[in-house]
C-alpha cells in the first residue's frame, strides 16, 4: 500500500503544476499586474511611478512565463510564474498583495471554516443516510413517495434561498439565534446553530436521494434476499447488511470532501459573517489578490488529491477484498 501511496503522491506533482499553470493563465488574462497595483494602491492620485514601484517590490515587473532577456534556464525561472509557483510546493505562500501573511491567515481562518463545515458534514451524513434508509424501508408506500417529492423539492431550491429564508424566519421573526456573526470558543455555538441547520437542510434533497438510490440497488441483491430468508428483522437487514455493502459508493462521495472541509463555504460564510477561508477566497477574488487566489487554489487542489488518496485507503478498510498495489 505504501508504494501505491508514494506513486499517487508523485502523480500529484504534475497535477499541481498544471493547476497552477491554468490558474495563473486565467488570472492574468483578466488582471494584468498593473490592474493589481491599481487595485491595491487605490483609484485616486495613483502615479505610474507608484505602480512601477509596487510591481517591482512584489516581483510583478518580470515577464509572465518566458523571459527572453535572460540566458539559459533563467529564461524560465526569472518569470512571475516560476517565482510565484515554486515556493508553493514548499508551502511558502508568501504575502498577500496588501502585505498580510497568507499562511497566518489560512491558519487562523481554518477553524471557523471547520466549525461550520464539520458539523454540517457529520450531521448531514447521519441524517441523509437515516432518511434514505427510512425511505427504503417504506419503499413503494406513501412515505417513500412523499419523501422523494420532498427531496426533489429541496433539490430544486437554491442554497441562497435557504440562507435568506432561514435568517428571516429563525433570526428575524422568531429571534432564536443571531442572524450573523462569530464568537470565540463556546461563544461561537450560538452563531453556528443556524448555518449548520441550513447547511444540512440545503444538502438534504440531493444527498438523501443519492443514498436512497444506492440502498435500493443493494436491496435487490441476493445477499439481502438471503438475509431476509434467514428471518432477520428488516432493521438488521438495512443497517447490518445493506448499509455496510453500500459503503464503497458512500465513501467515494464522503471521504473525498473531508479535506475540502477546511476550505469552507463561499456563500454561507459570507452571509453568516463567519471569518473562514471561503470568505477569504471571495475577498481575494474581489480585490484581485493573485497571491491569495493562487494559494487557495493550490491548497484546494492539494486537499482534493489528499481526499482521493484517503478515499482509496478507506476502500481497503470497508472491503477486505480490495488491495492497493
Amino acid at each position: 500500500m505504501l508504494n501505491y501511496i508514494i506513486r499517487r503522491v508523485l502523480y500529484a506533482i504534475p497535477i499541481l503544476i498544471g493547476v497552477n499553470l491554468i490558474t495563473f493563465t486565467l488570472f492574468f488574462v483578466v488582471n494584468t499586474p498593473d490592474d493589481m497595483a491599481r487595485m491595491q494602491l487605490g483609484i485616486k492620485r495613483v502615479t505610474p511611478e507608484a505602480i512601477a514601484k509596487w510591481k517591482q517590490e512584489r516581483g510583478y515587473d518580470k515577464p509572465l512565463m518566458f523571459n527572453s532577456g535572460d540566458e539559459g534556464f533563467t529564461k524560465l525561472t526569472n518569470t512571475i510564474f516560476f517565482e510565484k509557483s515554486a515556493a508553493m510546493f514548499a508551502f511558502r505562500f508568501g504575502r498577500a498583495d496588501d502585505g498580510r501573511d497568507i499562511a497566518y491567515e489560512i491558519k487562523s481562518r481554518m477553524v471557523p471554516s471547520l466549525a461550520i463545515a464539520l458539523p454540517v458534514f457529520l450531521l448531514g451524513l447521519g441524517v441523509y443516510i437515516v432518511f434514505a434508509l427510512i425511505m427504503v424501508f417504506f419503499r413503494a408506500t406513501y412515505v417513500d413517495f412523499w419523501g422523494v417529492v420532498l427531496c426533489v423539492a429541496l433539490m430544486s431550491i437554491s442554497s441562497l434561498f435557504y440562507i435568506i429564508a432561514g435568517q428571516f424566519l429563525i433570526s428575524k421573526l422568531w429571534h432564536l439565534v443571531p442572524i450573523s456573526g462569530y464568537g470565540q470558543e463556546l461563544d461561537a455555538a450560538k452563531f453556528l446553530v443556524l448555518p449548520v441547520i441550513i447547511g444540512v437542510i440545503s444538502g438534504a434533497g440531493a444527498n438523501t436521494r443519492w443514498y436512497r438510490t444506492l440502498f435500493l440497488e443493494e436491496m435487490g441483491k441476493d445477499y439481502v434476499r438471503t438475509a431476509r430468508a434467514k428471518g432477520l428483522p428488516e432493521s438488521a437487514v438495512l443497517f447490518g447488511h445493506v448499509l455496510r455493502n453500500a459503503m464503497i459508493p458512500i465513501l467515494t462521495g464522503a471521504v473525498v470532501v473531508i479535506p475540502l472541509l477546511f476550505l469552507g463555504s463561499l456563500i454561507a460564510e459570507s452571509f453568516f459573517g463567519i471569518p473562514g477561508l471561503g470568505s477569504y477566497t471571495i475577498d481575494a477574488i474581489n480585490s484581485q489578490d493573485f497571491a491569495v487566489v493562487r494559494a487557495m487554489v493550490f491548497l484546494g487542489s492539494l486537499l482534493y488529491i489528499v481526499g482521493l488518496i484517503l478515499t482509496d485507503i478507506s476502500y481497503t478498510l470497508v472491503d477486505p477484498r480490495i488491495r492497493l498495489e
Partner: protein
Amino acid sequence: MKAAVFTEPLKPSSLSPLAAATVPLQNWIHKTGRAKPRCLEYLLVMLTALMCACSGPWNNPYPDSDAGKNILYGAFAERPKHLDPVQSYSSNEILITAQIYEPPLQYHYLKRPYELIPASAAKMPSVQYFDKKGTRLPDNAGDEQIAYTIYEISIMPGIRFQPHPAFAKDQQGEFLYHRLPEKELTDIHKLGDFPHTGSRELTAEDYVFQIKRLAHPRLHSPIFGLMSDYIIGLKEYAETLRTADEAQLKEQGSDAYLDLNSYPLAGAEAVDRYTYHVKINGKYPQFKYWLAMPFFAPIPWEAERFYNQKGLAEKNINLDWYPLGTGPYMLTKNDPNRMMVLEKNPNFHGETYPSEGMPVDEQADLLRDAGAPLPFIDKVIYSRERESIPRWNKFLQGYYDASSIGSDSFDQAVQLAGQGEATVTEAMQEQGIRLETAVATSTNYMGFNMLDPVVGGIGKQGREAARKLRQAISIAVDYEEYVSIFANGRGIPAQGPIAPGIAGHREGKEGINPVVYDWVDGRPRRKPIEAARKLLAEAGYPDGMDAKTGAPLVLYFDVTTRGTEDKSSLDWMRKQFQKLNIQLVVRNTDYNRFQDKIRKGNAQIFEWGWNADYPDPENFLFLLYGPQQKVGSEGENAANYSNPEYNRLFDRMKNMEDGLKRQQIIDRMITILRHDSPWLWGYHPKEYGLYHAWYGNIKANRLSHNNVKYFRIDAGLREQKRSEWNKPVVWPAIAGLIVLVASIIPAVVVYRRRERGAGITSTESTIETQMS
C-alpha cells in the same frame, strides 16, 4: 455564553419563564411513570441551561457582559487595506484612522460652510510668503512674487501618545522591544502579547517624521506625487532615501532599518519642541486642508523602529495593522475578518464639545453637550458584515446603532412627504428611528472623451459641431428622472461640477445651467426636447442622422460590468438618447478594462464620479484642467478636456483666497464649462442615514471623519429596546417538533408491525403451529 453555566447547578430562582415552563414537563414525565430515556431529561436541562445563559435576547450577537455598556456598534463590509496614515486614503479606512490619528487641524463639527479649526495644533497655522531671496513678503503679495510659503504650525504641549510597546523602557531607560531576538517572538502573536507599554509626549519632530514618511521608498503614499510638487525637496528626498535604502538592503538584508531621522528634509523641519515648519513651493492655499487629513498626523520614530524588526511583519504586527496615535481612541482589537474594536485612549489630551453651531443645531438638540469633555463613548465595535440583508436586519433588531439605506430596503425605511421631503415610514417611527440626510461633497457625472472625433470634434468646425451635440445630449438626458427612478430621489441634479456646500457653488437662478435649464416659476426647468433637436440639427445630425452620409448617429457608452439590476438604468439611458434618435451602444466591460480605456482615451462616453478631498472649488475644477488630462499626463481629467481660457483662469483661481474676486473667476470658469459641456453634469448624491433613538449628537459631516468623539449613546434605552424587539418566539419550534413527532409515530407503528409480522420469532411460531 459562559462556560460556567454548564457546570454550576441551576437555581430555581434563576430560571427564565421558559425554563420554569419546562419543569412541570419534567415532573409530568416522572409522574406518568413512563420509562422515557434519561437523555431526554438531560437534553431538557441542557436546553434550559442554554436559555438561562442568555439573560438577554437569544439573538444578541454580542456577549451578555457587554449589556448596558457605553458601546457604539457599527458594521463594515470591506476590510480596510491600510491603517498606516501614510497610505490610507479610502473612505472605509478613514472611519477607523480618523479616530486614532490626530492631524494638526480638523473641521468644526457643526459649522457650515466647513471651517477648519485646530485639533492638536495650538492655533491655526501662520502662513508666511517669501520671495526667491528669502525675503518675507506681505500677505497680499502677488502669486508671481511668491517663491515659497512657510506654514508654521505650533502644537499643544502635553499631548501624549497612546500606550504602546514601542515606547516601553526598562529601568535603565533602554527600549524594551526595539531589538527583539527572534526567540522572544515565539509567544508574540498580536500587539497585546507584549506585556509592557509606554508613552511619551508628542513633539513637533513627530509631525516632521510623518512628512518624511511620505517619501519612504518602502511605503506607497498615494499623495506623494502631489506633495512632491509642493513640499520643497520632497522629490529629491525620496531619491536620497531610495539610494540609502538600496545600499542598506544590500548590506543588512530585508529587515534593515532606514532611519529617517538621519536624513533631513528641506521642506519640513522642527523649529522647537512644539513648532514645525512646512515649506511649500510657491503658493498653495489648499495645503491647509491637507493638514486636516491623517497623512499629516504625527508618527513617532519609535513606532517605525519597533515595527521594522524581523519577525514582527510576518505576524502582521506593523503600523498598517496596529496604528499608533494621539487621538481620542485606540485600536485594541484588529480582526478585520470579524471585528475591529476602538477603545478610549487613556492618554487623550482632552477636548470639549463645540459650544457654537448653526441656528438649526439648537433646535436639533445638538448643543446640549456644549463644553462637555470628549469623547462620550467608551468603546466602538465595528463588526464585519459582508451582506446587506443581515446588516439591515441587525439594525432593525437594535444590534447596530446606525445604518445606511440600500435600494432594496428603501421603501421599507423611507417615504416621501407632500413637498418631496423624505421622512421615515411609520414602522420606523414606531421604533424611534430617525433619518438624517446630507448632500455629499461629491459628483456623479457622464463624461465625453474630448479626444474622440465625434463627441470631441476635430478642427474648428468639428469642435463646434461636437459642442452642440454634447449640449443637445445634456438637455435630452433627464437627470431629474434618473434620480427619481434609480436613486430613490437621493440626489440633486447638478448644474456644474462644484457640489453644494463648497465655496463657488451657487444656488437659485444664478446657479442654474442656462444651456440645459430655464428659470420658470422660481425653479429650474429642463429645456424642451425640441431645443435639443435644434442643437442636434445644427451639429449636423438632423433627426439623429448624419447630414453628410445619411447614416444614423451611433454613440458608444462605456460602462463597467454591471449586474442585472443595472440593466434597467442602461435601458433608460438608451431611451434618453433615442429622444434625439441617437442610437446608444452600451459597451460593458470589467473595471480593469474600463480604466485602461479611459487611460488610453479609447472611451467615447463614460460614467465617473469624484469625492472631494477638501471643501475648495479647486478640488472639483481641477478635474477639467488641461494639464490634468488622463491621456498623456495620467491626471484626473478623464474627459481630456482642455480650454486655454479655462486653464488660465484655473491657474489664477487655485491660489486665491475665497472672496468676491475668486467667485467671479469661478463663475466665468463654470460658464465656459457649461458652454463646452464636456460632462453631463449628472447629480450630487444625497446620503441618507438611519439612526436609532438612543444615538445622539448626529450631524452629517461629509468632510470630517473624526466624529465618533462627538457621538453619544443611551445604553439603557438601547438595552430596553433590544429586549422589547427581540423576544424569542418559541412556539414555531415547538410546533415543528410536534409535527415531526406526529409524523414519526405512524412510521414507528408501521415499523413495529412489520418487525412483528416478519422475522425468526413469528416464523418459528408459525412452523411450530403447523407441526402441532
